[in-house]
């Protein structure tokens, strides 16, 4: 016999349960299996509002899965003669394809929160619109039952908030000024350094330098994108906005350039075959040859990819220099100089 409170009814999955007068939200912790359950009880009578919105995770997850699928598909088609490679690439392609199909079939993603007077709680199980809507409808019904009344009208809400004009004025409220961020500053400095290092790379024939350049480039680009995402809630200065956007574009360009360079290196360093990618799956030695070729390649060796490489580095330098002043002197930290208090009058000399 199942042991537990029978007055709980399942709302969604194993995390949301409908109780007699409250919603039970179970948060789980553990590793692979759940070892501990933490319970949050939200009285229906105290729920102020339920809010939900569609997120872009559906789109971005689809894009990433497709981007993951394409090289795997390419690897599968390029290695049809080798049974082991076909098996590995076929398995991975199939796995990603299944993930993509399941993801698309589950429908758009959403974020759902429930608000009381003391907390705004995110209901993590409600991730997909299709699954969330019936739960939200049921929760609304339960809350209205326990709060004994109809949903308040917009006018009543506005009157409670103060007045309609005050409420409407909130719509046009600007974003807060950018207060400055250490991450943005570091990203800008790294963009400049990484950009210069990239541009110098075709003229320096050293494997370690090539490796360090790549590392700095990756870190600066990722930091730039992360900083952009984290600071979008602020009113960014236009120079910083362009700079951070440029860093994001640089990531894409770096990806294209790096991919093209890998293919070129595999062709140029391969002594046995001209098939793209042959050097990378032939042997460790061939792979090492390709990396050595990339590190020692000059601008002339790389051809048009070399110019793409230089453009990449130049873009990073420009973005870094453009955003650095705003990052070092953010507008949000500008405060007017404090007026010193008036000096106290000197007491007259008492004889």
């Amino acid at each position, binding site marked *: 016999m*199942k*042991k*537990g*409170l*029978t007055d*709980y009814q*399942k709302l969604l999955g194993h995390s949301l349960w409908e109780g007699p*007068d*409250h919603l*039970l939200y*179970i948060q789980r912790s*553990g*590793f*692979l*299996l*759940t*070892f*501990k*359950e*933490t*319970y949050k*009880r939200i009285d229906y*009578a*105290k729920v*102020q*509002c*339920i*809010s*939900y*919105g569609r997120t872009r995770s559906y789109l971005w997850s689809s894009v990433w899965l497709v981007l993951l699928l394409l090289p795997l598909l390419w690897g599968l088609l390029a290695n049809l003669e080798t049974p082991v490679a076909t098996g590995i690439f076929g398995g991975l392609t199939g796995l990603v394809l299944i993930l993509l199909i399941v993801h698309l079939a589950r429908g758009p993603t959403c*974020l*759902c*929160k429930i*608000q009381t*007077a003391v907390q705004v709680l995110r209901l993590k199980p409600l991730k997909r619109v299709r699954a969330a809507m019936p739960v*939200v409808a049921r929760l*609304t019904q339960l*809350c*209205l039952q326990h*709060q*004994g*009344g109809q*949903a*308040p*009208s*917009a006018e*009543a*809400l*506005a009157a*409670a*908030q103060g007045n*309609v004009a005050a*409420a*409407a004025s*909130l*719509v*046009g409220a*600007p974003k807060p000024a950018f207060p400055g961020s250490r991450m943005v500053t570091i990203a800008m400095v790294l963009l400049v350094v990484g950009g210069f290092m990239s541009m110098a790379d075709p003229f320096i024939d050293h494997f370690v330098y090539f490796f360090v350049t790549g590392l700095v480039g990756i870190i600066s680009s990722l930091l730039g994108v992360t900083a952009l995402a984290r600071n*979008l*809630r602020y009113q960014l200065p236009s120079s910083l906005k362009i700079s951070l956007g440029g860093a994001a574009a640089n990531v894409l360009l770096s990806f294209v350039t790096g991919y093209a360079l890998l293919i070129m290196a595999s062709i140029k360093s391969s002594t046995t075959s001209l098939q793209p990618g042959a050097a990378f799956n032939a042997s460790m030695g061939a792979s090492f040859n390709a990396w050595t070729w990339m590190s020692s390649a000059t601008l002339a060796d790389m051809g048009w990819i070399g110019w793409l490489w230089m453009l990449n580095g130049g873009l990073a330098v420009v973005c870094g220099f453009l955003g650095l002043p705003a990052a070092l002197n953010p507008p949000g930290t500008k405060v007017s100089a404090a007026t010193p208090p008036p000096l106290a009058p000197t007491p007259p000399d008492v004889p």
Partner: protein
Amino acid sequence: MAVARCVFCNHVLPAAQMAVGSEVVCAGCHKPSAVIALPALLVDGRPKPPPLIEPPSEGEAACFYSPNRKATHECSHCGVLISDVWAAQWGSKSVCLKCLEHLREKGKDVGFQGSRLLWDNITLATALVPFTLVLYWAAFITAPASVFLGFWHWNSPRSLVPRSRLRLIVGLLLGLSQITAAVLLVCGLWFGWFTNGTAS
């Protein structure tokens, strides 16, 4: 004041735009979201000042903890008469603060428990550790441990919501089977069951 917050950035949303299912565009992140406003949003949620001291008049009960206050509630757990300042509302129940602390700390009453350990999953995980290949040698410790945990927590409360004993039973059976296999292995090595008969 009726204040709802944006689902994405927690920015305050204008109440004037809220109605059932209507979309509100946040001024902070400029993303649209739907807000279902409920009657509780109109209730003033600001903390109230503590009630004034109101001594009990002739024939009225006094608070058990503050005798100078009039009793207004009865603790649904211990039954003492308490005043407003000593009463806490827990769902539909009124409990005194001492009982509330006791119930939350000890967790004897399921209605007040904040968390629970799932011993059935812990038993199962202990029994599954040797199957990770890297830790197969750990079976000599984990198998007896899973059997011990399985029997020790046979009657322990599982989850707050309905949950069967299936995981506990699987964990126990896995642990017992590993112990049996280990005993057979040791016996086989001791008595030479695995040596080829042709060897002389």
